[in-house]
């Protein structure tokens, strides 16, 4: 039983046929976590009381013949930047050590209402700042596919949990690539929805104009099923969109022929690993074979995306992270005065990458620099969003690599932050534009490292993005 790879539909079938109870399934997943987590460090906290209580509700519903909700019994992992009532939520930071949120994020509440079983919280780069999960205050996560390598980040714990079959679906959060890039490094499907498609209520803010919640799963169909539950207007998030939520599962099997896929030449310029390029090009040929029509497009402002992103994201972070001051949550470092208490608590509570970004973000917002950096960054963001809008007048989807490199070794890139930032190039563009993007596996390198193919769609075009990703997966994209 332990080796079995579950999906939402096999879980449901097994529960309905009474081959396994939800409680037994939950126990099986906790046994897997006990076995693998000491090595992987994918989970920071487990929530067995809550999980078994939910499992018992599902089992009671089955026993009494009640209709089962859409995700009944689905084992779920939740990134530690997402609030869970009563379950420790640290954002991978010392400054939130011991913090238990007094409420659930809307995405978690909706999934639980749909029958999901919350197993626990997954490790991540501190406050989602990083691309390797090496910035967690609680130690790095290891990539289950290649144990000496990083799982990507910042949702590295969620991606590793899925790749190691420690959950069926995981929630991640994405600000500049933090769902998609770990999805690509660990070889799983990873969707960053349109900004505003999924409520951010309960998502602990890093950069509010960029932050999003989305699913990671072994199968695209499972990511689609979860999207159908978490998407939609939430009165508690004023930026959540009222646009109707399509039936994502029904969209998966629509015919592909005639779909125009745009290939931005600008994305295949310098800096891309030759094996990554080769696998992504093989992926594009597979999509053509499936009936998609290849169109060459230009995204002329791509080369400015990293600079604009790191101005906007750090500026917003410097403001959002002002709330961690030793007064309302987390540990406090005493000081003679209030200011000294703030300074010491923050100086010791935050790790290196977070402090670096707070300093940068405060600098670009400070008097005399605001116009040159922040305002210019926002104008360039407009130009990048325009690149996408103009491209989507000609094509239905845009295909790119997810990351220019496959998973790198632990410690290999920690010394040079700028080099680490530059590898976010293919994901930050879509983050700035607000459009949906999914990463799906497109073969492996000669060393067996997964490569990710990214599919961008227009705003609120998750159905199209999921449809292409599903067809790609079903046609054997992962084995190219």
């Amino acid at each position, binding site marked *: 039983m332990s080796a079995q790879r579950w999906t939402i539909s096999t879980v449901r079938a097994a529960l309905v046929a009474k081959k396994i109870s939800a409680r037994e399934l939950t126990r099986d997943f906790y046994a897997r976590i006990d076995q693998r987590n000491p090595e992987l460090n994918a989970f920071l906290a487990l929530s067995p009381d809550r999980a078994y209580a939910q499992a018992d509700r599902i089992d009671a519903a089955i026993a009494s013949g009640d209709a089962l909700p859409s995700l009944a019994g689905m084992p779920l992992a939740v990134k530690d930047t997402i609030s869970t009532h009563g379950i420790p939520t640290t954002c991978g930071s010392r400054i939130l050590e011991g913090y238990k949120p007094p409420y659930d994020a809307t995405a978690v509440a909706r999934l639980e209402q749909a029958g999901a079983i919350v197993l626990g919280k997954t490790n991540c780069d501190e406050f989602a700042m990083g691309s390797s999960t090496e910035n967690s205050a609680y130690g790095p996560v290891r990539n289950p596919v290649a144990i000496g390598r990083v799982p990507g980040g910042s949702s590295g714990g969620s991606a590793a949990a899925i790749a190691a079959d420690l959950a069926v679906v995981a929630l991640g959060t994405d600000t500049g690539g933090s769902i998609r890039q770990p999805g690509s490094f660990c070889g799983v499907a990873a969707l960053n929805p349109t900004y505003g498609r999924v409520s951010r209520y309960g998502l602990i803010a890093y950069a509010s104009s*960029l932050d999003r919640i989305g699913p990671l799963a072994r199968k695209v169909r499972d990511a689609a099923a979860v999207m159908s539950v978490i998407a939609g207007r939430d009165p508690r998030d004023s930026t959540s*969109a*009222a646009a109707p939520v399509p039936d994502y599962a029904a969209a998966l099997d629509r015919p592909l022929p005639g779909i125009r896929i745009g290939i931005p030449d600008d994305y295949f310029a310098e800096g891309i690993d030759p094996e990554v390029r080769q696998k992504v090009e093989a992926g594009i040929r597979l999509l053509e074979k499936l009936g998609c029509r290849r169109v060459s497009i230009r995204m002329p402002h791509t080369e*400015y995306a990293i600079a604009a992103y790191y101005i906007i994201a750090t500026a917003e972070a410097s403001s959002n992270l002002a709330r961690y001051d030793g*007064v309302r949550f987390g540990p406090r470092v005493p000081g003679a005065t209030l200011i000294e208490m703030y300074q010491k608590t*923050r100086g010791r509570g935050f790790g290196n990458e977070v402090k670096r970004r707070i300093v940068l973000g405060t600098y670009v917002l400070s008097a005399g620099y605001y116009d040159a950096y922040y305002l210019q960054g926002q104008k360039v963001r407009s130009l990048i969003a325009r690149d996408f809008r103009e491209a989507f007048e000609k094509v239905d989807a845009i295909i790119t690599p997810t990351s220019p490199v496959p998973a790198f070794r632990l410690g290999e890139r920690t010394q040079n932050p700028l080099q680490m930032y530059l590898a976010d190039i293919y994901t930050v563009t879509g983050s700035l534009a607000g459009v949906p993007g999914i990463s799906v596996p497109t073969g492996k390198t000669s060393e067996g490292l997964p490569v990710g193919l990214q599919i961008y769609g227009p*705003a609120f075009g998750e159905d199209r993005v999921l449809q292409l990703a599903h067809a790609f997966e079903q046609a054997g994209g992962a084995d190219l």
Partner: protein
Amino acid sequence: MKISREDVLKVAALANLELSDAEVETYRGQLDDILTYIDKLNQIDTSGIEPMTHVVAASAEGSTLRDDVVVRSHVIGEVLRGAPDPAPPYFRVPRVIEK
């Protein structure tokens, strides 16, 4: 050099962030690299371009405002239990007003 040691100290003070001497030196060098890189944005002519302040247009699909209605959340006890130095119904902090 884009950013000096004094700039880092000034910004850290604005952000209420205590940094060690070693941190100040490390961040200064790294931020210098990053700011030099970011300067490439000045190569683009953005005259006439509006800054992007909202991601989702305030339209039928976009954000909407709700009525400002008080809703009780009943979490005060739980919130205070998570605080480092609670004095219900308050958070206690070091003295800020002289006797």
